[in-house]
């Protein structure tokens, strides 16, 4: 019966250049696994540089694709697109992946990690993200989502003997799967009523007129991704998981996987549901308001730095969601997309830097408590200054990157010019002030408090970590002082098939 349904099947023509990043990653992953099998434990260190080379190698075709102005490359009957948007995001994923590798390199040497598998999982998850950037079809979106999530579950639970790590993993896993199940249900409905899994088709079908079923479908899908980007009230997993997981993994989750979630969200919204903005605009309005407020308020209470950062990243997610609350209004789409991309770039640079510092400090103090940062400035001025810079950036104080992310977000809001937009902007403004409450707490510890245990031996920074620090800090500073750069990327990040183009 299926055969009867199946139309005449012709093998598609494949643009290998467009697929190069994914293929390099995939190949690399295979190579990694094989090597891991055959290399003696003494030589396992070789895997680390290999992994980083694979990532950088995958980055090369991204560059070449960006430079070759072949326009939008569409594969598999428009279900897989390589446009500027996807390229920018791929670049972001790969680079942050690279930084995460740098963060992990020394960490692995210490902890009881199985390097091979770790790299395997990390790269697989990266592959999922890279694919996510190009997916334009419910199926491929779903697949790449799982491809990036499942390894992440395992990485979260990576410290096998550590109860917290287990807990982190299981919570993340169960809730993640639950959420994706809900999303799937929504997808199934969507497919049912639109008759296609192609976003473009769906957008054709989903006119502005809404039935309750359409609304339901759209909403469930949004929920699925809202979970990924840990938007309140779907954020509950984030703090526990971030705290429990190994720090590099947390960095990875809070930056790369969050970004992936936003990429998916953006693709679905901009390509799939432009018509039904009456559904998602209010939803995003509420989500972003809730997210930043609740995130901030809860962050004020935290004593554990990683947990605090978890809530802070929740709050940051709220800021990134802001433009989506107005994206449906005529003429705002571009600036909204631009704002999101810009914010993601800046946020990635800053947050990775923060985690780098956290790891450096944790190595000395062996504690995750904020109080352990007391007097950092007195014995490690350099690190403290960097941390100050990152915190300022997260708080959105010029001239460090963060301010411009917020600026762009506010800009797209205000450009909408509706009362709701202004209201959200003001909520955002107040929140950005409140946020300093907890970012300032860390600054206060570092600059104004005495060293808790009086141990003022200077911290040691391993080479790879210092490289990571340099990259992130330079990025943060440059993005802040010359905001033209991220903005440029945001601007060129044309999303093929998106409305408003």
């Amino acid at each position, binding site marked *: 019966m299926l055969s009867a349904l199946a*139309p005449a099947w012709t093998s598609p023509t494949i643009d290998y250049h467009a697929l190069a990043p994914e293929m390099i990653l995939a190949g690399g992953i295979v190579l990694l696994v094989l090597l891991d099998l055959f290399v003696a434990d003494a030589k396992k260190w070789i895997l680390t540089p290999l992994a980083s080379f694979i990532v950088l190698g995958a980055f090369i075709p991204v560059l070449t694709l960006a430079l070759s102005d072949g326009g939008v490359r569409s594969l598999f009957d428009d279900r897989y697109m390589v446009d500027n948007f996807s390229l920018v995001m791929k670049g972001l994923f790969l680079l942050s992946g690279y930084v995460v590798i740098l963060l992990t390199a020394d960490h692995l040497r210490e902890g009881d990690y199985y390097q091979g598998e770790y790299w395997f999982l990390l790269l697989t998850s990266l592959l999922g993200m890279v694919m996510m950037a190009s997916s334009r079809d419910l199926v491929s979106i779903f697949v790449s989502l799982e491809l990036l999530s499942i390894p992440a579950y395992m990485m979260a639970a990576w410290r096998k003997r550590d109860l917290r790590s*287990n807990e982190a993993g299981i919570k993340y896993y169960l809730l993640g799967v639950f959420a994706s199940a809900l999303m799937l249900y929504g997808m199934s409905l969507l497919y049912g009523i639109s008759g296609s899994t192609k976003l473009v088709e769906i957008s054709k079908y989903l006119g502005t007129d809404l039935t309750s079923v359409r609304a339901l479908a759209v909403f469930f899908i949004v929920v699925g991704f809202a979970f990924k980007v840990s938007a309140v009230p779907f954020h509950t997993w984030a*703090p526990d998981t971030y705290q429990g997981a190994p720090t590099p993994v947390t960095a990875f989750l809070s930056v790369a996987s969050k970004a992936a979630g936003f990429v998916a969200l953006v693709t679905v919204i901009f390509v799939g549901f432009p018509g039904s903005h009456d559904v998602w605009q209010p939803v995003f309005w509420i989500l972003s308001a809730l997210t930043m407020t609740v995130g901030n308020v809860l962050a004020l209470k935290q004593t554990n730095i990683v947990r605090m950062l978890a809530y802070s990243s929740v709050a940051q997610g709220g800021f990134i969601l802001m433009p989506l609350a107005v994206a449906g209004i005529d003429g705002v789409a571009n600036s909204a997309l631009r704002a999101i991309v810009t914010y993601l770039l800046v946020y990635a640079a800053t947050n990775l830097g923060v985690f780098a510092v956290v790891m450096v400090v944790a190595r000395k103090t062996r504690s995750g408590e904020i109080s352990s940062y007391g007097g950092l400035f007195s014995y490690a001025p350099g690190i403290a200054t960097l941390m100050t810079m990152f915190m300022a950036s997260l708080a959105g104080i010029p001239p460090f990157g963060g301010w411009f992310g917020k600026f762009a977000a506010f800009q797209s809001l205000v450009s909408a010019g509706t009362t709701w937009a202004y209201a959200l902007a003001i909520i955002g403004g107040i929140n950005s002030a409140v946020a300093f409450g907890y970012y300032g707490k860390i600054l206060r510890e570092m600059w104004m408090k005495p060293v808790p245990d009086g141990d003022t031996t200077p911290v040691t920074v391993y080479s790879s970590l210092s490289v990571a620090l340099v990259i992130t800090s330079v990025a943060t500073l440059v993005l802040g002082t010359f905001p033209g750069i991220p903005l440029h990327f945001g601007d060129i990040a044309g999303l093929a098939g998106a409305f408003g183009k």
Partner: protein
Amino acid sequence: MLLNQFLMLGAVLFCIGVYGVIVRKNAVLVLMSIELILNSVNINLLAFSLRNGTPDGHTFALYVIAVAAAEVGVGLAMVLLMYRNRRSVGLDDLSEMKG
């Protein structure tokens, strides 16, 4: 066609699954409840696919099944890990971190 019945079945399964996820304290049962949801999704997909007369639904369903398998694998592994560390699969024991 009996579309509505299929959808009903899907919806019922979905609700049972959700119910299970919410009330069951046993990790394995929660896992199974999630499987239920996924299967309800599959039923929907197939039903729609038949109605729409496009193969996309079937393909999607196949993917879902595959992914579900992978998920269950990972899930069980984790539950095992948990059991090994604390001799229990009760989710309520997992409250090291809160607040």
